[in-house]
């Protein structure tokens, strides 16, 4: 009994150490660095790096740009996945079809980004096909879909990587939460397909998936390889911007990189708190209406 208790206690300590230690250590180190308390050129406590970072328009622009890309990518992926699950319910019962959706998940982000670059860039596959078919006069006329100002290439890659996971995830929620039965019941009670979708399916789905969606927004927001290959210097996503700062020759920029990383962390935390509360209210109001 005692042995079991000690073993469980030990496992808890290991778990906490694995979860908290790297996070807290990293956070503390970044905090100390950003206040000038550690690092190669440390000159003691200063707010200089924070003042510069907080007043850096491009840092805020990067956070905003990253957030926009992440939210649009996750939004599009969610709706694609939901549409697939709703419209291809019977196909998902076939094993081969269900397994097929796992294929895109095997691709590393870099490979997917390179694929998008090869396919959608101005000199890529679609550009050449469009030119050959006479849709455009010259290859350069093809719309800018990679390394563009709106991050279309990054969003395209993110969607390609995220939607297969969402499809599997939403399908599992449908099965586990008996959503098909809820839908049938709702219609039996006189609700139209549209009413059933907005008042029953979506709120139940949202309750179960909001945390995962939020984690994916954070995941896409912090992606590095994809914006590096498909993004621009301006606007630039936050992670490549932080890495740029941290790896410059000017060592004075390193504390600013850490301050920027902490600023980004703060925005993410605020985002989680605000959206989780407001979306619950949104659906409550919708079902009250």
């Amino acid at each position: 009994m005692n042995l079991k208790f000690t073993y469980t206690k030990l496992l808890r300590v290991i778990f906490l150490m694995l979860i908290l230690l790297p996070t807290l250590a990293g956070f503390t180190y970044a905090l100390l660095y950003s206040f000038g308390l550690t690092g190669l050129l440390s000159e003691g406590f200063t707010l200089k790096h924070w003042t510069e970072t907080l007043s850096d328009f491009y840092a805020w622009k990067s956070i905003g740009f990253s957030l926009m890309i992440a939210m649009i990518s996750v939004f599009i992926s969610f709706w694609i996945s939901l549409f697939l699950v709703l419209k291809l319910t019977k196909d998902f019962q076939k094993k081969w079809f269900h397994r097929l959706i796992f294929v895109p998940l095997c691709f590393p982000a870099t490979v997917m980004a390179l694929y998008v670059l090869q396919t959608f860039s101005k000199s890529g596959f679609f550009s050449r096909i469009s030119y050959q078919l006479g849709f455009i006069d010259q290859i350069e006329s093809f719309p800018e879909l990679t390394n563009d100002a709106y991050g279309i290439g990054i969003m395209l890659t993110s969607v390609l990587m995220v939607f297969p996971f969402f499809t599997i995830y939403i399908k599992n929620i449908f099965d586990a939460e008996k959503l098909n039965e809820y839908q049938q019941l709702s219609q039996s009670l006189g609700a139209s397909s549209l009413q059933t979708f907005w008042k029953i399916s979506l709120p139940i789905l949202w309750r179960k998936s909001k945390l995962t969606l939020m984690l994916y927004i954070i995941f896409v927001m912090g992606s590095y390889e994809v914006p590096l290959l498909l993004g621009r210097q301006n606007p630039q996503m936050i992670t490549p911007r932080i890495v740029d700062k941290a790896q410059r020759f000017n060592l004075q920029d390193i504390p600013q990189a850490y301050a920027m990383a902490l600023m980004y962390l703060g925005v993410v935390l605020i985002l989680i708190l605000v959206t989780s509360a407001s979306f619950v209210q949104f659906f409550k109001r919708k079902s009250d209406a």
Partner: protein
Amino acid sequence: MRLELKNISKSFQQKPVLSSVNLQLNENQVISVLGKSGSGKTSLLKIIAGLEKPDSGDVFLNQKSILNKKVNQRQIVYLFQEALLFPHLNVFDNIAFGLQAQKVEATEIESRVKAILKEIALSDHSSKFPLQLSGGEKQRVAFARAIIIEPQVLLLDEPFGALDVETRENMQKLFLKLIKQYGISALFVTHDLKEALMIGDQIAKIDHGHLRTYQNKKDFIQDEKSGVKEEIDFWTKIQEFE
């Protein structure tokens, strides 16, 4: 006649589930449909509700075919074995759901929901969420949610199957009270002989997709294949043993 089924047949993967099923349900009548698992009871109810299509045959509601009508236009409510209360809605909103879908005025919804909450003795629970209710309370809410929209026909698929004996008996009494009060015709599917006899005005038995409707309860009890004789024998033996 409220509901009529004519020669309904259904197969799944070439295996017949229902074979030329005929049934007539009158106004304010409750027919108990007895059958073992896999006998085709659920398929029968789902076809009537419009959740599944038959291979052949027709379904008539008030002498009109409803086979091509959508589920939400049939005025037939299908109650699953589980209460299936919408988890994100409280008791009040769960009960009001059907009325809201029909765009009934908010004031009328409120008065009707309050009245039915009183009937099912859950007035104090209106703001509770399904997770905060017991199994019996959930079933009462599910009932109220179905009955409040006053459907032409109510289909019940073993609704008390998961309840304990005491709650089950209370639910049976409540069901009979509400169904008479609201004047609703119902098909009540069960595998419990006593429940079928207690609830139904008439009994039907489904076996391997074949439905037999008895003229009255006496015919059913006297039929050797009904299972009543085995039930009586069982209890007689128990008494002798004691």
